């Protein structure tokens, strides 16, 4: 019983933490969805741990905790992949901005020089 309460508390804590971050605009709503989902799953599983046993029976998994690990790993891998995608998009955007900025700087210099000559 005490372990159940412990894990339920952890789930609740994560839910509130994510909620708070989003509310304070420190975490985008879109990105938070994944984490919220994960936290809710942790919360539900800590209250009804039998769910794992049932699912593993349906899937034919002999050792139920391995299903839990599989899910956790998938969750982390998907999250990592998403991060990688976000980083590539951001890198590209930053590159574009750097180039645009450099070209604009050059243009300003040109205009300034022209003004000085006039």
């Amino acid at each position, binding site marked *: 019983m005490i372990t159940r309460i412990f894990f339920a508390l952890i789930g609740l804590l994560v839910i509130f933490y994510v909620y708070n971050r989003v509310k304070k605009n420190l975490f985008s709503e879109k990105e938070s969805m994944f984490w919220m989902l994960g936290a809710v799953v942790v919360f539900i599983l800590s209250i009804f741990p039998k769910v794992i046993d049932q699912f593993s029976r349906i899937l034919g998994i002999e050792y139920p905790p391995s299903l839990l690990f599989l899910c956790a790993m998938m969750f982390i891998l998907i999250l990592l992949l998403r991060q990688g995608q976000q980083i590539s998009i951001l890198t590209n955007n930053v*590159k574009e901005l750097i180039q645009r900025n450099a070209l604009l700087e050059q243009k300003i210099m040109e205009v300034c020089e022209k003004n000085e000559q006039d």
Partner: protein
Amino acid sequence: MSEILLIIPAYNEAQNIANVIDEIKQDLSYVDILVVNDCSTDDTLQTLMLIKDIVVVSLPVNLGYSGALQTGFKYAVEKDYEIVIQFDGDGQHIASEAEKLLNILKEQDVDIVIGSRFKTKNKYNHSFFRKIGTHFFSGIIKQICKVNITDPTSGFQVLKKSVFEKYAQMNNYPEYPDANLLIEMLLEKYSIAECQVEMRNREFGTSMHSGFIKPIKYMIKMFYAIIFILISKQRTISNY
């Protein structure tokens, strides 16, 4: 303003760049010169500021060779140039040789002209690994596109407007714009010609392909990029 722009991406080339620009001004007096300073950590920028009649674009962050080059293409598009010459800032390329490339571009009406070191046999000094790499990738291009390109890694190229406009817009302009980019352009029916040019061995500084690990990394990345292009292009070609 001329209709030809010569782009030099420069990263830590303080020792070479002044000589390179002097040579271009002497031998190719009719082109405009643009130097893209890729956030050099030495006095490249200060050296450039002292030189007259050139345009300097200075990147606030180091973007690497291809990022700097693409900035140059964007400038060329903005200023409406007709032809772009890609030139290295390390003194390897010889300015008077660019005339040959320009002539071929005009006479044969091709889109890209590459200055090749290996079209005819000569004694250009190249490290063993790069020789293997160059042969390997020119073999791949020959297999796929049935075009003989002897020096796909050459940074000495002349490009027509349609080509550099495309390069400027590409949001995935590759880190190493070599064999992969040439294959992509060939598959999109751009025409490429080659011309034998002389090149010097570099005097100061190190090449971006120096060392032992870097060439291997380069080979793997390039191979992956080519496979990727082949798969994606196959799809678009079969869709028509």
